[in-house]
């Protein structure tokens, strides 16, 4: 969820209840006040009417027959003693209008000068009052909705404006790629926090960029520095092997050393290759017939690994071409094919399928490999294969990454399949 939407939604929920609560409170207070006003009016009337009666007891015999605003009824002493004043809503029938009208009624009791208790019933029409209550209700409801909408829309606009620098910063982050120069950040803002964030982001990017460069440089330098000592050690061994009077045991030991040293040389070369690919040090590319290269490489490899007795088949559906650096194409195809031979069962099958924009290398395998791990550097699915550097597929992946080639792994029909897809690399 976006920050703007999240904040806006939180504010909306808060305001919905807060303003709703205030609105209800206000409504009930007003209504209560209006009701109270009616009762107060009735009390005033009562005082006036009773005052008149005490002044002029003859009124006791009268009754308001027009508006039915009052009636007087004598009470016996028992009724009068625990008489409680009452207010209630009722209706009266107006004959002339032929309709019922809502009224508020007050009943009270008093002692007249003739020592008789009377009950005075007063009525007052509440048509106006009910109209007013309804009006108040609707005004408040409309006010509530309009205010809620205005505040929500307002905060939305404000929030969007406020978060513009953040949005720009995030877009900028998408363009920060390790190994490429840090792009300029044009994000002028008056907001101190965002301004600080901008500065921190740029500084951080430059720092990580520098660290990345230094690390790359370090790997390359370290690999280079190793070349000379390795050359010396290996050359010395070659010369030593030619010395007089060496026993077979000595020669075997020297051979062992020679091979071990050879592994170090390979590993070092692979690391150097990876670091160069990552540094983009293979610039010149041209259109290559990858099918031809793959077939030639496969021939060579089958020669070398003839003891494994791999049954290889090539299926050519179309000419497979791609634009890339010549030596990298060789490295890529060699690594994939060698992988398919070395990690094959003895006497297993190898299938090379060439298509337009696609190349598929499949080999017999027992169970699926972990697709998330096989392209990692120094990952070995089979730890018993000590001779493999664990860099072959990682190098293949790096080369593919350089040219936008999609390299994917799948397990189908008892075979490990590595698929190269060149569609994106053609532009």
């Amino acid at each position, binding site marked *: 969820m976006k920050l703007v939407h999240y904040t806006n939604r939180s504010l909306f929920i808060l305001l919905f209840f807060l303003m709703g609560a205030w609105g209800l409170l206000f409504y009930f207070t007003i209504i209560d006040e209006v009701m*109270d006003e009616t009762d107060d009016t009735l009390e005033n009337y009562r005082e006036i009417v*009773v005052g008149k009666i005490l002044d002029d007891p003859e009124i006791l015999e009268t009754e308001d027959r027009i508006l039915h605003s009052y009636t007087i009824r004598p009470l016996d002493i028992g009724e009068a003693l625990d008489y*409680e004043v009452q207010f209630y809503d009722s209706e009266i029938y107006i004959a002339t209008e032929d309709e019922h009208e809502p009224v508020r009624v007050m009943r009270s009791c008093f002692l007249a000068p003739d020592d008789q*208790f009377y009950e005075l019933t007063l009525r007052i029409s509440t048509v106006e009052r009910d109209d007013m209550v309804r009006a108040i209700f609707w005004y408040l409801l409309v006010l509530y909705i309009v205010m809620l909408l205005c505040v929500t829309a307002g905060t939305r606009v404000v929030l969007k404006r406020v978060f513009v620098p953040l949005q720009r910063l995030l877009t900028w982050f998408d363009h920060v790629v390790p190994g490429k120069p840090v792009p300029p950040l044009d994000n002028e803002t008056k907001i101190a926090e965002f301004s600080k964030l901008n500065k921190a982001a740029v500084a951080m990017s430059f720092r990580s960029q520098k660290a990345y460069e230094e690390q790359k440089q370090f790997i390359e330098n370290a690999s280079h520095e190793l070349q000379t000592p390795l050359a010396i050690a290996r050359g010395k061994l070659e010369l030593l092997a030619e010395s007089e009077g060496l026993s077979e045991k000595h020669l075997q030991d020297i051979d062992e050393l020679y091979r071990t040293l050879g592994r170090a040389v390979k590993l070092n070369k692979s690391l150097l290759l990876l670091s160069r690919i990552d540094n983009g040090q293979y610039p010149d590319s041209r259109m290559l017939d990858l099918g031809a290269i793959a077939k030639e490489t496969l021939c060579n490899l089958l020669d070398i690994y003839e003891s494994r007795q791999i049954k290889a088949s090539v299926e050519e559906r179309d000419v497979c071409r791609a634009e890339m650096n010549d030596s990298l194409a060789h490295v890529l195809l060699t690594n994939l094919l060698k992988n398919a031979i070395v990690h094959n069962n003895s006497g297993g099958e190898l299938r090379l399928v060439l298509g337009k924009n696609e190349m598929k290398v499949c080999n017999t395998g027992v169970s699926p490999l972990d697709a998330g791990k096989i392209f990692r550097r120094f990952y070995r699915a089979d730890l018993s294969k000590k001779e493999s550097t664990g860099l072959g597929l990682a190098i293949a992946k790096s080369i593919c990454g350089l040219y936008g080639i999609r390299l994917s792994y799948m397990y189908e029909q008892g075979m490990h399949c590595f698929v190269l897809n060149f569609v994106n690399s053609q532009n």
Partner: protein
Amino acid sequence: MKKILAVLAAAVMSVQMVSADNDVVTTDESRLPVAARETIKKNFPDAKISYVKIEKDFFQSANYEATLTNGMEIDFNSKGDWIEVDCKRQAVPAAFIPASVKEYVETNFPTALIVKIERDRKGYDIEMNNGLDAEFTPTGAFLRLDD
């Protein structure tokens, strides 16, 4: 959600309570303080109480308004001390009127009757049947005259 509704309900109820100030009107004179009943019996021996109105506001002590069958009205505070006597165009019994007030009225308006007297912390306020109002200090010293 439930919490919010509960708070809302409590707020509405408290408002209802504050405004629940309807006066009590009763014919039961025993609801008057004893001192008030005695004041009435002593000063209006022939009169009967038509009804008593008890005004009780939320933050205040009660006020009593006794209306007699002859139309006169005497107000009392919660302790039963009188605070207003309104005799509706008849003379207020002399017991309610301080001597200096009585003397002032007799000196200045020999023919006038005091029909209403009020008292509070600020002093006395009388109304005469000639339509004039007069104010006095708590000790009974004359302050001013109004129409």
